[in-house]
């Protein structure tokens, strides 16, 4: 609100900002809290006294902790990395990568920064601190109980990286297929005024509203016995669909289609039809017009829609838990499994650590795409 006439009195701004801070606290607290829990011994993590959970006396008693010095240096290190990445990285990427291939430069840049950070933070810094802590006396004494052993259990002993890989396969598959299929359909629906288009949209909306458990339970027997009913079509190589990531990708794409085509249709409706009509006057058919005129301007809407597909695939539990077996299990069912089996309290904290691990990529994703989401929505990906 740049205009002077719209400037707000100080008291209003203050109240507004106080409420905003309150909201941010409410929004972030549960996530902050499970992160804290994941670094504590089981006794501390489920303690009812909040201070004990934060300071972790039982964790400290087992010899795992951070001294003031650790904390100061660690925070400094994180801050330094953050400022380095935000200030220096963009210019470095721009100077080293060829024009038009900047995204590749970004991938390399971010990866390098990540690896460098992990190396210094997890290997070099602890080594230095081991030497420094005894020298600094009281500053070097452990005050905050903290242990990374649950993360070690999750990622090394439990082979969670395998689940991570499977999640990645399923998610990337769903996003790509869903956007490809959905963009075409969304464009077609936006440019057609026929009653058929309308009814497709309405039926899609009803599909969107369906309870998933109804559909999913029906898939299991069909998927398990697929060799039998596919044999007449595909011969001896007929696959068992159960436990195959591509089958799950297909199911998730289908479940996600209604929302995708609705989003993209509204978005394409906001791109003036004159644009592609002009291209068609120049002799392009619909597909060429789509490729030459629409594709260059559709990315904000597609990225926003893609993010929703990503969330659906990444967070799905119902479909993946039922249609995949242990060898290609994704992360969410794996975590739920950790709770449902006959667990101990330690298992639960390990599951908390896994839960935090699975949230981290989501946070990165939002950090990267935040601006595109807002601009995509602003550009009209949602108009009801």
């Amino acid at each position, binding site marked *: *609100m740049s*205009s002077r*006439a719209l400037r707000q009195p100080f008291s209003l*701004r203050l109240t*507004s*900002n106080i*409420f*905003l801070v309150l*909201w941010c606290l409410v*929004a*972030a607290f*549960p*996530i902050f*809290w*499970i992160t804290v*829990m994941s670094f504590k011994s089981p006794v501390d993590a*489920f303690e*009812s006294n909040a201070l004990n959970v934060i300071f972790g006396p039982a964790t400290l008693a087992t010899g795992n902790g951070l001294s003031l010095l650790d904390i100061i240096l660690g925070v400094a290190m994180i801050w330094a990395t953050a400022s380095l990445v935000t200030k220096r990285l963009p210019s470095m990427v721009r100077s080293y990568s060829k024009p038009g291939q900047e995204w590749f430069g970004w991938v390399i840049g971010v990866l390098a920064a990540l690896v460098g950070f992990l190396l210094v933070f997890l290997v070099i810094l602890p080594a230095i601190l081991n030497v420094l802590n005894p020298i600094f006396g009281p500053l070097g004494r452990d005050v905050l109980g903290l242990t990374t052993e649950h993360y070690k259990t999750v990622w090394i002993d439990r082979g969670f990286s395998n689940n991570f890989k499977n999640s990645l396969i399923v998610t990337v598959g769903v996003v790509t297929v869903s956007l490809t*299929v959905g963009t*075409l*359909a969304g464009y*077609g*629906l936006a*440019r057609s*005024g*026929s009653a058929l288009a*309308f009814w497709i*949209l309405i*039926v*899609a909306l*009803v*599909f969107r*509203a*369906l*309870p998933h*458990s*109804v*559909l999913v339970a029906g898939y299991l027997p069909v998927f398990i016995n697929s060799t039998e009913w596919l044999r007449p079509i595909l011969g001896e190589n007929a696959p068992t669909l159960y436990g195959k990531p591509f089958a799950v990708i*297909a*199911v998730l794409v*289908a479940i996600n*289609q209604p929302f995708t085509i609705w989003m993209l249709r509204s978005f394409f409706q906001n791109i003036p039809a004159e644009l592609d009509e002009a291209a068609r006057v120049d002799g392009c058919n619909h597909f060429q017009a789509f490729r030459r005129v629409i594709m260059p301007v559709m990315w904000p809407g597609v990225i926003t829609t893609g993010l929703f597909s990503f*969330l659906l695939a*990444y*967070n799905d*539990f119902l479909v993946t838990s039922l249609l995949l077996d242990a060898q290609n299990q994704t992360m*969410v069912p794996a975590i*739920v499994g950790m709770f449902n089996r006959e667990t101990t309290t330690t298992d639960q904290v390990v599951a908390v650590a896994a*839960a935090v691990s699975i*949230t981290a990529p*989501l946070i990165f994703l*939002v950090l990267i795409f*935040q*601006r595109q*989401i807002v601009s995509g*929505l*602003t550009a009209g990906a*949602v*108009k*009801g």
Partner: protein
Amino acid sequence: MNFRTFAAFVGPSVLMMLLFIAFPLISVFKQSFYITQPIYETVEVETCTPGFLTQTCVTEDVSQPKLDEHGEIITQTQYVGLQSYRNVLEPERTWRAISEGSLNVLSTINFWKALRFTLTFTLITLPLVVGCGLGIAVLINNAARTIRGPVIFVSLLPFIITPVIGVLSINWLFRGDGILTAMLEWWLNRDIALFAQAWTIEVLMMLYRVWHVAPFAAIVFYAGLQTVNQDSLESAVIDGATRWQRMKYIVIPHLMPLIIFVSMIHLMDSYRVFEEIVGFSSQGYVISLQWLTYDFLVPDQAGNRSVSRASASAMLTMIGIVILLILPLRRTWRDHKGGH
């Protein structure tokens, strides 16, 4: 656009939806009128199970399904009309409860219990989500430009977090002596058990849902706020309109399509509330329609599942959602016709 081009564009998407949504749905519809069951015979069987030192063997009559020559269970499928719907709706008991005027009895019949909660949940969270979303959007829009980025980021966290994990974290914070319950107890100086009666669980579920969805509404509304016509706002100020009037006569009408969009998405999502029931393990107190269907479908330990009743309850759920959606859809029809 002629039909063939249209079909080429829309085809793949429609095909996937047909294959994975429409066909299963049709078979669900069919199953709700039929019952498929194995043919059982009673045989005397001796079963030996381990004790601590020796085995215990019992001989008893057991119902066993008959197998055909391929070793597969012989099943028979039979048309039962609306029997499965009757089994779900329990009309006799319902009627008795209504004629006696005892709502307590009505609320122990599963379907009505589930419907009651699902509707309450949907209709209470709807205005809350829209209201909170709008509030947060306005707050963010009011904030200094430099802090908007981080604030939007933090606001989005509840929305992106995996629902299963979101529910569990709320569970840890409140269940038993979870730290937030402990804080409440300390503050109010009395013993609190949030999971010990229906209404507190319902309130928790609704709060969780609002926490989870309001960021989505907020970010959509915030995007909408960026396109409010600044000129008309300024002329409204010159005309002496108060803040509230500007909000009411310029901003809200501008956001109306978005409000309808968010409401529709939320209606659909909250009508199939499920994760909260499982995550808070609230089956003893409240259940939802999707949970009811799910419970019929999940096989018990001996492998029995009530497919017909599940299909019937799924169909009833679907009728409900269509009724809820009719109003917003009438507008879409007008838009669709007007847009071309």
